[in-house]
């Protein structure tokens, strides 16, 4: 892995290996810092717990985000209540930070009645109208032109809304990425394209994904600024996202943020990166824990003490455990949820199928063969 990104080329606030800050720390209240830190701890905690649940067979699938907490929370925390999120795979933390309840989060992973989507989607496809976050759609990059459309609509109505369209580095190869940036540039839509460049698209390393020098440079071709940020530096991410947000709010249109981070684990719970990734050649800087970097800052500036952190962690853990117990006990979705929401009202042919489905399952038990 010779060529991930050179940290010297990235916007930075928190010091790294003797590299100086390139931009000032964002002006945040102590409460904002605590909220961001709490969310980063939560994302890490969920990650560890959910991978365990997956190994125990209690959930079918999980997409971890360990090591990407700064990118996720540093950007997502800039979104206001009215802003919209079109996520990729690893932005559940954005929804949680903005109030998505843990019971619903777990309900989605279990696919049961607590899931606002009625257990219809594979785990990780969280969605909640309450926090203006649509679900990840597995087909990569499809969310990006949609984010542009939503941003255009907000602009048309004169609403004070900015749309966040998240993506991975792999997604920049899909045509939807390019047409989204192109449309957004032409329309000056209030949309932020936030790319978590974690170095990998499943087994494909960054240098096989694109020959360009990073992702941020791609913005130039579409007439918008591209900013490459140390994505493991939560304050740099926050500052850069805020800058892009302020531009959008001034009517100056879209921006592309490249948050350079690292996928520490497998692509998902089904993946074994040792098959294709040489751990010895991983650039050392990407493995410096984003949570520790932030913790050092918070301690040095007397924002979160060790004792306070313990209280935060303990509270998160008990909230997580309690929500998990509730969620795991919830029943699966009712049979009719298979057929509702396909259309606004169930057409006749589907109604017939729904009725026959009941009788079909009654014949499922072994030995019930009717002949």
């Amino acid at each position: 892995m010779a060529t991930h990104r050179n940290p010297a080329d990235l916007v930075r606030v928190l010091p790294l290996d003797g590299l100086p800050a390139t931009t000032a720390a964002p002006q945040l209240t102590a409460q904002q810092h605590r909220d961001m830190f709490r969310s980063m701890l939560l994302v890490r905690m969920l990650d560890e717990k959910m991978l365990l649940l997956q190994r125990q067979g209690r959930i079918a699938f999980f997409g971890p985000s360990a090591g990407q907490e700064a990118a996720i929370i540093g950007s997502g925390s800039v979104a206001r209540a009215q802003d919209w999120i079109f996520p990729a795979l690893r932005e559940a933390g954005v929804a949680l930070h903005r109030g998505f309840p843990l019971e619903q989060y777990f309900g989605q992973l279990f696919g049961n009645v607590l899931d606002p989507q009625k257990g219809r989607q594979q785990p990780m496809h969280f969605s909640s109208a309450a926090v203006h976050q649509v679900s990840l759609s597995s087909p990569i990059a499809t969310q990006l032109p949609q984010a542009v459309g939503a941003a255009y609509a907000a602009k048309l109505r004169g609403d004070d809304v900015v749309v966040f369209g998240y993506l991975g580095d792999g997604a920049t190869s899909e045509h939807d990425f390019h047409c989204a940036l192109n449309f957004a540039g032409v329309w000056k839509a209030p949309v932020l394209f936030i790319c978590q460049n974690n170095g990998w698209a499943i087994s494909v390393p960054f240098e096989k994904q694109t020959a360009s020098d990073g992702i941020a440079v791609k913005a130039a071709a579409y007439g918008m600024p591209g900013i490459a940020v140390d994505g493991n530096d939560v304050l740099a991410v926050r500052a850069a996202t805020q800058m892009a947000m302020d531009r959008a709010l001034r009517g100056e249109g879209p921006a592309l943020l490249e948050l350079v981070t690292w996928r520490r684990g497998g692509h998902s719970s089904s993946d074994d990166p040792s098959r294709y990734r040489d751990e010895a050649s991983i650039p050392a800087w990407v493995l410096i824990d984003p949570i520790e970097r932030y913790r050092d800052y918070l301690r040095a500036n007397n924002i979160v003490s060790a004792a306070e952190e313990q209280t935060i962690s303990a509270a998160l853990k008990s909230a997580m455990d309690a929500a998990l117990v509730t969620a795991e006990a919830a029943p699966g979705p009712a049979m009719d949820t298979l057929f509702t929401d396909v259309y606004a009202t169930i057409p006749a042919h589907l109604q017939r199928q729904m009725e026959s489905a009941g009788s079909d399952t009654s014949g499922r038990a072994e030995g019930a063969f009717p002949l």
Partner: protein
Amino acid sequence: MTANTGTTVMTLLQALNLALTEEMERCEDVVILGEDVGRAGGVFRTTDGLQAKFGEARVMDTPLAESGIIGAAIGMALYGLRPVAEIQFSDFIFPAMDQIVSEMAKFRYRSGGEFTCPVVVRAPSGGGIRGGHYHSQSPEAYFCHTPGLVVLAPSTPEDAKGLLKSAIRGADPVIFFEPKRIYRTVKGEVPNDPDFTVPIGKARIARAGKDVTVIAWGAMVHTCLEAAEKAARNGVDIEVVDLRSLVPLDEVTVLDSVRKTGRVVVASEATRTCGFAAEISALIAEEVIEYLQAPIVRVTGYDTPFPYALEHVYMPGPDRVLAAVHRVKTF
């Protein structure tokens, strides 16, 4: 017995890997491209070991863009190579739809036969792996509806090997649906002969029977065989026809079976409306209605997106097939 004349027991996945290996050894023009097919050997391990064996120039990890994969494969084929493109899940074939439907399928026709693109597109399909909407679908009907494409859907290791080799050696573009649910669970004898092929356009009688014809393809063949065993215990003798090749279709085998039994069930995992099961039903109604002693009955997925938690309700199991058999038997 030489290695060339015997058989070896293997999984469907191993049979596919063997077919690719043999064809790459046979012909330097055969190349593989797709997401994660090289270093990692594919997310299902279908191309395991091939990059190590044949090099990065012939086994390519591409950027993440299906239209790029298929478009580039078309260009390679126009130039004379024999590309085998992998779409990681058939659910992700849609970004390449324009290249497949507008380009790959029509090149021969629109160039008066001067330019052809014999690309093989491999696509794992079907449900039963708890994959939800986007890792479960059976999109074969879209491609059967597109003139110019050969559409294959094997259900056994032997057919997987033999049909993939025929596809790679053939003259036309092929969409090759692999039944991913049974990649590792179905094992069978596979001929060792590196020139063993299975002809495109020939169905297979998976189980001979006299009372009811059940027609299926892909993983659903095994569901129907299970149903047939249950039915046999109740004195009903089901004939299971494994189509293997959807386009071109072996009409003779299908219609002969129906003439024999007079009762038909067509089973498919795909959504019902405009599915390939409807095409089979129409063919039978048009050609041999005078032999039918009961209406043709389809067993299919429902006309809904593929669900997650209720997957077991959506997917037709042996009991749903048997309920349909019961209907045509007692009509």
